[in-house]
């Protein structure tokens, strides 16, 4: 794990879970798998705090454990999973576009709590939806369950590995930690529950009517004493499926930008048909015949079969090679080259970065070297039609920033510089890695700057929050306009200005984080699929 990644993980953990969890988490990421006592000793925190932190981390799937020989349990953190926390808003928004508010809240609850049973999720989501509905209306559990089942069917949520039911009566002491197993077939199997009920609105009267005096400490099993039907079956969000969806979205929008709307719809149909049949790391989708595609086109599109065939031929002939033709049966068998598509997307990202950072002439040189693979300096000047001095300057600038690399080809065995060819080349994989590293650093900077801005204006923020609370309570009890005005004037005009500036800055920083995360996603997918291929 690079230093930049560790720093970013530390910032994310601290922001979401607090300092103690951050300390433990970063220590585990840095040092690999360790047992409990060693963690406590090395970080200098008390054993109880470490236990608490580990419970939280395991609950959120950030840390896993393994039983080694002699009963020692070792804990290991997954750095890449911690970095996914940046992407939570994007996951939730995607679910909203696909399954509307109910789906959005289900995924949100699962992400915030790590893992939950289906009944718990349904209950929470129904309560939350009921809060937002008008008075008198409540959300039925059945509707939420239906959305949950649909999410499970399309693999967006999956079951967590569970404790195996031991048939053999083991007389010896139970193992120090359970080994969790999951059957491939059961991963998306929704248990047959009949969840009947409606969401509860949280009214203040309900809380007082709890009845018993507070002296009675509530027992661990809360109000409902009846056994939960799906006890032990926990669900978590399937991040890979979301990544697959994002990748498909990126490919479709790329095709739309390059060609037109209709071809992007055709590609979208092809991707949708191969969603479940193709695994997420396959280099290309299963071959689809033109007839199948024609049948599966969305209802609104009434293009004739010949037009579809023409579009498919056009897509297959495109130099970007998103779509390939793999056979002629069934009117032509077409596949989508996923790895090639990801490579093109990563390359486009690199080109755009070079253009925005160094200018369009540099971008021209970059694209030229990409196309021709290896070029000498003289050849670059000739092909790009840029004067020698400028071309040299730009090449050196890009070289110093590691977008390009130099390949030496000696003519003589003594590698004399005057008798060596120096060829400029772009190694996409290493440039992508370099850019990814920069992205991690920039997000860490953005988060730190945002925290700094908030800390600087903490006093002012607290004051404004207090004033808002006072205004809200006064409005609830029915106060006059003059009184409200007076309270509002507690915040002076320059302070208001300051608050406005702060809000604008924080919004800008947040939006930048989201933007950089999209780039990170593309680069990481590309690097991952290239590594798998090799």
């Amino acid at each position, binding site marked *: 794990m690079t230093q930049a990644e560790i720093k970013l993980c530390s910032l994310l953990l601290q922001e*979401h879970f*607090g300092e103690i969890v951050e300390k433990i988490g970063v220590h585990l990421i840095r040092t690999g798998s360790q047992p*409990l006592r060693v963690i406590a000793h090395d970080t200098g925190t008390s054993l109880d705090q470490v236990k608490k932190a*580990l*419970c939280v981390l395991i609950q959120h799937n950030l840390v896993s454990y393994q039983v080694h020989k002699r009963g020692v349990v070792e804990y290991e953190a997954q750095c890449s999973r911690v970095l996914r926390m940046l992407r939570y808003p994007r996951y939730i928004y995607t679910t909203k576009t696909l399954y509307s508010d109910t789906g959005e809240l289900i995924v949100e609850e699962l992400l915030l709590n790590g893992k939950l049973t289906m009944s718990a999720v349904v209950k929470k989501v129904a309560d939350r939806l009921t809060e937002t509905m008008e008075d008198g209306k409540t959300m039925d559990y059945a509707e939420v369950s239906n959305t949950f089942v649909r999410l499970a069917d399309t693999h967006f949520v999956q079951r967590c590995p569970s404790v195996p039911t031991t048939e053999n009566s083991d007389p010896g002491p139970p193992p120090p930690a359970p080994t969790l197993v999951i059957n491939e077939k059961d991963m998306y199997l929704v248990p047959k529950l009949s969840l009947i009920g409606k969401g509860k609105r949280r009214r203040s009267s309900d809380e007082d009517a709890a009845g018993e005096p507070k*002296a009675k400490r509530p027992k661990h099993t809360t109000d409902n004493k009846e056994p939960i039907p799906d006890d032990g079956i926990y669900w978590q969000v399937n991040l890979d499926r979301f990544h697959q969806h994002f990748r498909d979205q990126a490919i479709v929008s790329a095709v739309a930008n390059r060609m037109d709307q209709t071809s992007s719809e055709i590609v979208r149909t092809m991707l949708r048909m191969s969603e479940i049949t193709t695994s997420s790391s396959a280099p290309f989708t299963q071959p689809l015949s033109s007839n199948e595609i024609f049948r599966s086109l969305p209802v609104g599109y009434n293009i004739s079969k010949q037009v579809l065939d023409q579009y498919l031929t056009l897509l297959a002939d495109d130099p970007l090679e998103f779509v390939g033709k793999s056979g002629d049966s069934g009117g032509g068998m077409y596949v989508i080259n996923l790895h090639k598509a990801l490579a093109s997307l990563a390359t486009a990202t690199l080109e755009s970065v070079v253009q925005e950072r160094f200018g369009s002439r540099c971008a021209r040189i970059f694209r030229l070297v990409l196309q021709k693979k290896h070029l000498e300096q003289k050849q670059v000047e000739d092909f790009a039609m840029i004067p020698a001095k400028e071309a040299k300057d730009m090449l050196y600038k890009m070289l110093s920033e590691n977008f390009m690399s130099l390949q030496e080809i000696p003519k003589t065995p003594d590698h004399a510089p005057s008798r060596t060819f120096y060829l400029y080349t772009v190694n996409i994989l290493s440039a992508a890695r370099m850019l990814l590293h920069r992205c991690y650093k920039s997000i860490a900077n953005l988060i730190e700057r945002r925290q700094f801005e908030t800390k600087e204006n903490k006093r002012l923020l607290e004051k404004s929050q207090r004033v808002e609370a006072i205004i809200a309570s006064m409005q609830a009890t029915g106060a006059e306009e003059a009184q409200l005005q007076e309270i509002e004037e507690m915040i002076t005009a320059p302070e208001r200005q300051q608050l406005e500036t702060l809000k604008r800055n924080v919004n800008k920083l*947040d*939006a930048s984080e989201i933007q950089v995360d999209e780039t990170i996603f593309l680069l990481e997918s590309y690097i991952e699929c290239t590594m798998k291929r090799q």
Partner: protein
Amino acid sequence: MFPGLLLPRCSPSQGARRKWKVVENAEKAGLLPCLPNSGFKRADFHPQLLLHWPRKLTNRELREAGLERHRLEEAQYISSWPRRGLRVGEGQQPLEFRPVPLPSGEEGEYVLALKQELRGAMRQLPYFIRPAVPKRDVERYSDKYQMSGPIDNAIDWNPDWRRLPRELKIRVRKLQKERITILLPKRPPKTTEDKEETIQKLETLEKKEEEVTSEEDEEKEEEEEKEEEEEEEYDEEEHEEETDYIMSYFDNGEDFGGDSDDNMDEAIY
């Protein structure tokens, strides 16, 4: 800016000690305001700086010239100092190309609002572990009865302990010593068992007392916990906090006298 005042009367190397004639002339002519006298060496003016007043000066140039920035600001030789509020590309190394604008629009704003909301929500969940409040210097009587924070570092939420390694479970010690001492005198009148059984029970309780004082030992703890759990269920209704009083009625007097600052009409008894 002051073309006629270019040539100093003494060489630059001696400028540190002698007052530049140019400055003297300018001050007399009223073109330059007289600088405050407190330790500021007017003679430190570098002649070239006089030529370049309209230009914004950078820190390095001034440092080389040996001047103090704030004094110049005070004397208003420098009008606008780009200290804060630097926009993109206005620092020491200006950016050649400005960054592309961020995506705006409905989707962008929704995701932004969602992100900020999630950040706030995660801080309220029980998974956010705050560092423990530092203990006050003297242990106060009310500490025993105030529920500040989780008891004995226990967790606020209930994970499924079957899925976690056993060593992670934090056992809550509910002031065991006192509990045992209260149990012992009450036991004989309640139970109508034989003497032997009572003796046995006393022995196990004694053993438990010993175990409590010893270090954590996992196997014994399990037995202890099982017995504790049995007694917990038996005693929980009567021995909640070893008091017969309802918790919410307890008032430790901290609020006394602090409420009514305004109305001094009512007498406080």
